[in-house]
């Protein structure tokens, strides 16, 4: 069964450092997403990406965040200068087009900023 894979599963970084979270979406999917879940809170939408550009972003997704699809398979989330409040589980997801399409989620990357 196709799946979304994320690496690393856990990353610890010092405040102010840059981090890159990596995702390999399902190969025939066209929409890619990043979501965030702060411990004990709901899963929050960060950004959607389609046709090599951001299609929608939340207010959380400020200038410290960026996404990229550097090649035909990877989808990355970069946080330029991490803050303590960036500590969270970050989920990548991918879907076929259409609002009702099922989103397949990766296992997540737990980011801990110290």
């Amino acid at each position: 069964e196709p799946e979304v894979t994320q690496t690393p599963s856990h990353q610890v970084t010092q405040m102010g450092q840059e981090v890159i979270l990596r995702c390999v979406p399902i190969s025939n999917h066209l929409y890619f997403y990043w979501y965030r879940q702060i411990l004990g809170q709901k899963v929050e939408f960060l950004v959607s990406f389609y046709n090599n550009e951001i299609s929608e972003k939340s207010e959380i997704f400020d200038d410290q965040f960026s996404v990229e699809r550097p090649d035909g398979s990877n989808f990355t989330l970069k946080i330029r200068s991490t803050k303590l409040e960036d500590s969270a589980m970050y989920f990548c997801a991918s879907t076929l087009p259409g609002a009702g399409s099922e989103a397949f989620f990766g296992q997540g990357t737990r980011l801990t900023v110290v």
Partner: protein
Amino acid sequence: AQSVTQPDIHITVSEGASLELRCNYSYGATPYLFWYVQSPGQGLQLLLKYFSGDTLVQGIKGFEAEFKRSQSSFNLRKPSVHWSDAAEYFCAVGVEGNTGKLIFGQGTTLQVKP
């Protein structure tokens, strides 16, 4: 604005007992509705989804959910809970606009007593 409310933060049921997890949504048009399950340390797995048609939908692991437009609800049910069902359950609404963005509820943590 679209929103999802899961009124019960934590529910405990005995193994073998029936289960109902509540979900209410706020959305102007016909919603696309989803239930996801998250086991500890794991990603999000789709249990079931509603797009249109029959308002009672069946999912994996013996779960079902009923869409009630008049009550803006999409409650998840299972007739007999197993200890392995202990997890966090998220209700989500899919937003129109073809981005596939999901709005999640706060989640309900299910504990199963032996």
